[in-house]
């Protein structure tokens, strides 16, 4: 029976010790421990949040970089395309102008050649005329040395004229 009957002495000492323990532990032990634990938890939460934020920032930055790269690439492509076009056009132009020039040169050359040929022909004609005259002179000179010959010639000439 006395197992389940409280005793005043032990009750008193338990009360005294427990109240003292509660006071001392609360003031000197639980408060610093709990504040440190809370502080650390706060720190961890903040660090995690910061990490998340940084990650998100990194992501946006990466996306931005990607965009920039894309833009740069597009720009480069455009530039290259333009350059190609310009180059092609330049080549085309050059070709056209070269053709024109070539044609001009060819034309000039043809004209020159024609002129020169005409000149040469004229020259030749003159030469031939001169030669003819000379030959004729010589022939004339040789044939007119005797009478008979003069006569023959004359006859012949007369013949030619007649024939004509």
């Amino acid at each position, binding site marked *: 029976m006395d197992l*389940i009957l409280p005793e005043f002495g032990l009750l008193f000492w338990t009360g005294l010790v427990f109240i*003292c323990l509660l006071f001392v532990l609360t003031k000197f*032990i639980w*408060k610093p*421990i709990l504040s440190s*634990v809370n502080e*650390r938890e*706060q720190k961890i939460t903040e660090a995690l949040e910061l990490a998340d934020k940084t990650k998100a920032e990194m992501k946006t930055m990466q996306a931005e970089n990607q965009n920039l790269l894309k833009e740069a690439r597009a720009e480069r492509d455009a530039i290259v395309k333009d350059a190609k076009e310009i180059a092609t056009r330049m080549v085309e132009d050059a070709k056209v102008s070269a053709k024109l020039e070539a044609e001009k040169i060819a034309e000039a050359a043809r004209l020159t050649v024609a002129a020169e040929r005409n000149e040469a022909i004229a020259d030749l004609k003159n030469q031939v005329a001169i030669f003819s005259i000379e030959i004729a002179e010589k022939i004339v000179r040789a044939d007119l040395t005797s009478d008979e010959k003069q006569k023959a010639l004359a006859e012949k000439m007369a013949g030619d004229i007649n024939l004509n």
Partner: protein
Amino acid sequence: MVHSKALFKLQKSFILTFLSILCFNMVFASSNGGHSTEPVKEKEFDVNGMIMHHIKDAHEWHLWGSEHNGTTIYLPIILIDGGIKTFSSAYFYHGKIVTIKDEKTGDLTEFISGVGPAKGYAMYHEKLYKLSNGNLTINDGHVHGNSKVLDFSITKNVLSLFMGAFFILVIMSSVARFYKKNGAVAPKGLAKFLEPLIVMVRDDVAKSNIGEHKYKKYVPYLLTIFFFIFFNNLLGLIPILPGGANLTGNISVTLFLAVCTLLVTLFSSNKNYWKHIFATPGVPVALLPIMIPIEMVGILTKPFALMIRLFANMTAGHIIVLALVSIIFINKNVAWGALSVPMALFISVLELLVAFLQAYLFAMLSALFIGGAVEEHH
């Protein structure tokens, strides 16, 4: 809920075991009683006496050896009887043994009459009385007529209480020092071991039962009650000097702790709590005359259950271990150790779990009651 259900199941099985052990002891007690009238040839091993001696409080700390010639620490006795009187309990344990007749049953019984400074006082079943004309009147196993003196002695349990408090202070202050020195860093050593428990009490016990906004005020109380019970439970499991006392299995201690929880609950209760007691919402007015007394009794039954639960669980654990060890001495054969030691070891290990579980339960239920008292209307 599954969790707590499992806990209650475990408790139930413990109480059952407790009861069965009690019956077991009664059988022994009655058989001893039957033999006591006949001349005893060989002294029987008194299991009941031994177990009761271990789980009850005493004015000495018996270490080993026989009852009167063994090694014992005599603890100081402090009496308040017209002033404070202090002397060693040796004046009782080495006092005069007086045999008297029980006035009702007629059985012979013994009490100790103090000598030296203890003269004029008697110790009967570890309780102190004032002798009237050098005599003690015992009626049906109880003392009658003699005034019980106020006994503030440093008994076995009080010393164990002091040591428990000392261990808590030393260990916890070393943890607190770690945080003071290192600030908010990852815990190391003892702090690493105890921080999860502290955080558990704060989050799982206080925060989840009292509520996000109000729990902070009660965390120190719940931490103190948790570690007080936990440390003393563990200390009780150590069979030699720093431990061994059945402190948390003593009704005075659990009574005080339960009263603390009751007072904290009542002092932190709000209007909503009392409204639920005096005008339970949803209950017809006609039923209130029945409901109000029930609710009023409910205020007391909750801490009462706390008191009984801790007392019964811890006492039962001590009884089981002692009873299992007694198997060897009952049969007077060391071979029984092969059965008794593994079983006692198993129960001791289980008691480690129970030591934690009961501390956790006490703190959790305290938090639950406080939570019910501070809950706002919703």
